[in-house]
């Protein structure tokens, strides 16, 4: 039995293709302040802080150290950092709150995907001896997965285009989204391939952004709150040849442990940077046609590296808080072809 933890604050920056003006601290400070304000807490009230970011995106070591200064951590605070998407920072904070001796946590993430050639940068994630020297970029690896799904008859290019069209339509209502230009499915399918079988609309934009989430131990009583009822993450082998790319076994495992299949789901925010990945994730999470998927537009509308996963949790919680449903799933991914996946179940209590 886990301790119920409420999501009491969420803020994000508008996602943009290139944010030349802000460095780390300037990305982090506005979202942290806004999330705390929403939670009606100050930094001094926070028992534990955890952040997610990547030095490789910034092109220098210890970039998270500069970001921390934006929080004015004085007196010194209890703080940790994961070199992962902020969703895993939230997981660490959730674990810390499970220990029972602290009741509040601040989580933030920032990423400037625009500073280098992102496809080349992400190739540095690969096995440095056997895979990275071949420099297979992130889009090409995703294309391999799409091809495997198409060949297996698990999805069609038209369905992929439908995902993109819906995502862009929904993104029009999201003031923080980056890609909002609507197009119908026929128009999208007329476009040339970027990396066959992926077209531009199948791929995420390159985004700079930041977001922050505030967690607090849930209060007993009649307060309406959005509570994390289950959260888990799992990883799969890195070697693509050791995996069935038409499945997302780790998503299924994490979902089972997070309790996804116990009750009906109203909405899902899935971190699916590529259209075929949303189709795959829907199947692994057993989401029926009634479930509203990625009402924010998802990662196809804005994909700030290290941030987009945490944003899914914040978006899902915000939508529940606004009355858009009673039970939501938020999902985050990391690594090539959905290697690592985190699933979080949120409920209104």
């Amino acid at each position: 039995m886990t301790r119920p933890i409420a999501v009491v604050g969420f803020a994000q920056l508008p996602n943009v293709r290139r944010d030349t003006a802000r460095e780390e601290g300037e990305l982090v400070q506005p979202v942290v302040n806004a999330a705390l304000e929403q939670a009606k807490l100050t930094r001094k009230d926070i028992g534990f802080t955890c952040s997610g970011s990547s030095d490789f995106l910034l092109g220098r070591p210890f970039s998270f150290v500069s970001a921390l200064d934006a929080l004015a951590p004085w007196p010194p605070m209890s703080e940790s950092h994961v070199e992962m998407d902020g969703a895993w920072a939230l997981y660490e904070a959730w674990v810390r709150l499970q220990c029972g001796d602290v009741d509040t946590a601040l989580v933030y993430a920032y990423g400037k995907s625009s500073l280098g050639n992102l496809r080349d940068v992400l190739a540095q994630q690969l096995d440095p001896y056997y895979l990275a020297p071949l420099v297979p970029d992130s889009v090409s690896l995703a294309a391999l997965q799409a091809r495997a799904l198409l060949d297996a008859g698990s999805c069609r290019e038209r369905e992929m285009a439908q995902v993109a069209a819906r995502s862009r339509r929904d993104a029009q209502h999201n003031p923080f989204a980056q890609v909002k230009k609507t197009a119908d499915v026929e128009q999208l399918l007329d476009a040339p391939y970027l990396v066959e079988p992926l077209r531009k609309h199948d791929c995420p934009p390159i985004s700079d952004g930041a977001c922050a989430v505030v967690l607090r131990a849930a209060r007993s009583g009649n307060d309406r709150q959005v509570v994390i009822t289950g959260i888990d993450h799992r990883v799969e082998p890195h070697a693509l040849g050791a995996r069935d790319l038409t499945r997302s076994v780790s998503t299924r495992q994490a979902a089972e442990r997070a309790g996804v299949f116990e009750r009906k789901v109203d909405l899902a925010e899935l971190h699916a940077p590529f259209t075929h990945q949303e189709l795959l994730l829907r199947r692994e999470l057993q989401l029926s046609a009634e479930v509203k998927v990625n009402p924010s537009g998802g990662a196809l509308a804005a994909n700030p590296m290290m941030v987009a996963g945490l944003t899914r949790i914040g978006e899902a919680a915000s939508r529940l808080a606004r009355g858009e449903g009673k039970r939501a799933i938020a999902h985050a991914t990391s690594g090539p072809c959905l290697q690592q996946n985190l699933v979080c179940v949120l409920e209104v209590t």
Partner: protein
Amino acid sequence: MERCAVIGIGQTQHRARREDVSLAGLLREAAERALQDAELRFRDIDAVVIGTAPDMFEGVMMPELYLADALGAAGKAITRVHTAGSVGGSTALVASHLIHAGIHSKVLALAFEKQSESNAMWALSPVIPFQPQLTAGAGGYFAPLVRAYMRRANAPRHIGHLVAVKDRLNGVKNPYSHLKLPEIDLAAVEASPMLWDPIRQLDTCPSSDGAVAMVLTDAGAAARSPHRPAWVHGGAMRSEPVMFAGRDQVNPRAGIDCAKDVYAQAGVTDPRRELDVAEIYVPFSWFEPMWLENLGLCPMGDGWKLTEAGVTALGGELPINPSGGVLCTNPIGASGMLRFAEAALQVRGMAGEHQVDGARLALGHAYGGGSQFFSMWIVGSDPP
């Protein structure tokens, strides 16, 4: 809170270059030794937590993805921690939280650095946009702090050299140690080249390839462990800003607060008397007396007097770094966890030639950044 115990510890042979192993091979060497100690196998582990300093040291972005296969993590949870030089300690604490929270029963914590893949000194000299470049290597950053300490405490110049000799002689007793300098003496340290005044070459840590692993478990699994466990009595982390005029980098408040927190959790009121041994992060010899004061192990200004009087020697009243410490072995990302693991080895009575007789309560300490990130734990022979 569930109780947490360390039932397995393993580390690599640390050397300047481990060209005989890949990154994954380096981690497996430590992991297999830890599992062997615990008489467990990879399949028994529920979750893996790894820590390392900047990814640029090895040139692999988010290496947990590539390492998942070699660490038997497929189908499990793997987390990657990065809190600068304190990361090894923080990684152990993140793993301990998974146990304390009752989420997992057996967690494998690992920390590593394969520094021969790059040039750590220049990787630690980042040029930050819109900020003056302050440093040439970590020594360039810390030397002014050492000079400030010497003035404040009115410490004689040879104190650092005493630590350099003591830790290197301790390292001779540690089979895994990178540096083995059995011939070292005060004259040799004094004759070594000056790198960053007053830090001479032999006052400085080496650059190592190495990894360390620990198996952390709940009380149920600890009861079945083949060897005596080390019990976690407290753990704490603290961070403070880089740029803040109110900071005292010689005696950082984050370190003071972190120590107070961990002592309180462990019920320690007089750390100098109650702790039997401490493994603290001393990358430059002068940091031994500086941290003795920061940790509240002596009054302000007295740290160097303890060092000079031999209190911190193996066989002294409060041995510091009987393993040889960071001055003998420094795979940066692993250095903090090595302190935590060596503290645990001491209270398990398994430290071999560098064992402190009858050690029952030990402090593990790590710091990083510009003396701004701290992580500490206290481990004991008895359950808390």
